[in-house]
């Protein structure tokens, strides 16, 4: 990976919006579709949250977009106002009253919320920790995103990616053929990469970002699997197909789960992708309608587990370089994977200097939740990234390590714009490079 590749990729992302097809839905259809999503998703647990909100505004103080800009409109709970109104008018216990005193949502209003739920929210979940009532705001913003997507009001870049997924079964130009080609290239460098094997204990994926920017991530992951002696295979289905509800049909996820099940997988291990992790780890069983027949781990968890079991041994790096660790939101705060990456950093002989906000209170890199696809939101992304840069700089560490290639891309793009010199490293690549001989 080099600066040219990042630059080319950024240019491509900037052109995504122009590839979106126009929508032909009427305003009434948009409102009806959005309401259908909201009403199907808001259950007793969300109703309890919506009924409990005190409008105290504390969630704003947790949000990197509010803190980065100071603009009240980016207050997290404000972003679900249309959802709240639909609930109150349609299914809430006082709906007979709220229909009289609360205005209905409109297509124009939904469109205005695109900036609030896509451009200025990465569903990082930091606000969920702050709320004194325990209100889980970020999943409700997820419902808002789905509602807007159903109304064809997702950002054009999202619609372009979805169209590519639906028609070509590719993400950002990467599909099965490209993943297979990447595996073949790695194999030609002497690293065994079994692809779509009939049987395997471990099923692994590669992402579009792996193929486009970070092929070394797959190569080093393959070295790690080979070293542990695991029976594994790379599934050529791109895990971006596991993407959030607003960008992909559930049928794709079911197909991928089925492919893993057919191979008798005991573990499905997800690559450095915060996007795919919660989708499969926590949503997979609910989409399938039954418990998953295999465990789901991130590659970071797998590395931590294998280190602990002694099946993986690393050569400590010379000189105890100082690093800090960026917890990817969806894997850390969204999945509880905190100890494993730190165990790996310890085994690498690195000196870890934690950021002030780390583990569960970590700040998002600014581009999660697909936000990095939205070119028109780059100014917001940079404001959020500035908070991150300050926290990293305050540690005095020489490099920042992360376990998500989307975060890594955001760091690289943000660093390029800010002329920030701190090194940005990938955990899996460092581990793979330091395997004992």
């Amino acid at each position, binding site marked *: 990976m080099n600066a040219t590749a990042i630059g080319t990729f950024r240019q491509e992302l900037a052109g995504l919006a122009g590839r979106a097809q126009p929508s032909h839905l009427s305003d009434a259809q948009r409102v009806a579709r959005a309401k259908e999503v909201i009403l199907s998703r808001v*259950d*007793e*647990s969300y*109703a*309890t*949250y919506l*009924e*409990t*909100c*005190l*409008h*105290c*505004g*504390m969630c*704003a*103080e*947790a949000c990197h977009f*509010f803190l980065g800009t100071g603009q*009240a*409109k980016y*207050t997290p*709970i*404000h972003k679900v106002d249309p959802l709240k109104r639909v609930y109150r008018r349609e*299914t*809430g*216990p*006082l709906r007979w*009253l709220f229909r009289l*005193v609360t205005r209905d949502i409109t297509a124009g209003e939904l469109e205005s919320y695109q900036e609030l739920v896509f451009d200025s929210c990465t569903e990082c979940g930091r606000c*969920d*920790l*702050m*709320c*004194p*009532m*325990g*209100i*889980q705001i970020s999943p409700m913003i997820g419902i808002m995103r789905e509602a807007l997507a159903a109304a064809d009001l997702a950002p054009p870049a999202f619609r372009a990616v979805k169209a590519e997924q639906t028609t070509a079964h590719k993400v950002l130009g990467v599909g099965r053929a490209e993943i297979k080609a990447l595996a073949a290239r790695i194999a030609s460098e002497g690293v065994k990469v079994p692809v779509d094997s009939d049987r395997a204990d471990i099923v692994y994926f590669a992402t579009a970002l792996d193929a486009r920017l970070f092929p070394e991530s797959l190569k080093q992951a393959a070295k790690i699997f080979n070293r542990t002696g695991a029976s594994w295979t790379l599934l050529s289905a791109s895990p971006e197909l596991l993407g959030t509800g607003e960008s992909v049909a559930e049928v794709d996820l079911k197909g991928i789960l089925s492919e893993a099940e057919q191979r008798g997988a005991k573990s499905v291990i997800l690559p450095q992708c915060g996007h795919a992790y919660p989708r499969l*780890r*926590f*949503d*997979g*069983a*609910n989409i*399938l*309608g*039954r*418990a*998953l027949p295999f*465990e*789901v781990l991130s590659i970071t968890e797998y590395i931590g587990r294998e280190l602990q079991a002694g099946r993986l041994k690393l050569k400590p790096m010379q000189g105890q370089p100082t690093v800090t660790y960026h917890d990817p939101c969806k894997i850390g*705060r*969204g*999945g*509880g*994977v905190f100890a494993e990456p730190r165990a790996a950093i310890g085994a690498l002989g690195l000196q870890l200097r934690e950021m*002030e*906000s780390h583990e*569960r*209170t970590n700040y998002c890199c600014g581009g999660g939740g697909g936000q990095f696809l939205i070119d028109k939101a780059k100014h917001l992304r940079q404001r959020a990234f500035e908070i991150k840069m300050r926290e990293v700089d305050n540690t005095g560490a020489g490099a920042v390590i992360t376990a998500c290639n989307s975060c890594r891309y955001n760091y690289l793009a943000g660093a390029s714009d800010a002329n920030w010199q701190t090194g940005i490293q990938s955990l899996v690549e460092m581990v793979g490079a330091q395997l004992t001989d």
Partner: protein
Amino acid sequence: MSILEFARGPAFHAAIIVFVFGVCWRLVGIFLLRRHRDRSQPRSGGLVAGGVRAMIMRSLPPHELEKQIVFQHASGYAWHLGFFATILLFGPHIPFFRQFLGFGWPTLPNSWVLVLAAITFALLLVLLLRRMANPVLKQLSTFDDYVSVILTMLPLLTGMMASAHLQPFGLRYEDVLGIHILTVCALLIWFPFGKLMHLFLTFPARFQAGALLQRKGVKA
């Protein structure tokens, strides 16, 4: 029928009926909604324990985030404590509770409670003004937010007037006391329709959040 007789009689009884029926209606309406079953494998067990822990621990924000919300948090606790102390530890209120519960309890000196009520009222006034001035709060605020805080302030104000035997506009003490009880009735009637319901919903919401985060292996 005097103001006091009306307040203590039909008004109070009507307020209690609206309060009880309204609270039950709203709670049942929420808890009878369908609930999506979560089939994902929990990262760690003890979901109920995680929920119960969050019911308590969410009383404080994560210490890493505390510094950003010191004022909101401290002022919130302060006025709630002052409000409930005024209700429960004011001597003249005890006969009312004894009438319903059959027993009473020790109280604070009336002058202390008067000071406490004045501080609580002042805090609520500051918070109301802050809500009107702070861009985040102003944007979030609805009719409910303003009505709820004003209806919470009025019993404090009229209670202090009655306790201090202030009799504006030539009102008799009994009339001021009657007005005080009427403001309590107004608060009870409004209660089921607005955010005051958080008295009953805070702990269920925290429990859900705690269980959800426990499933993910994250401290709530």
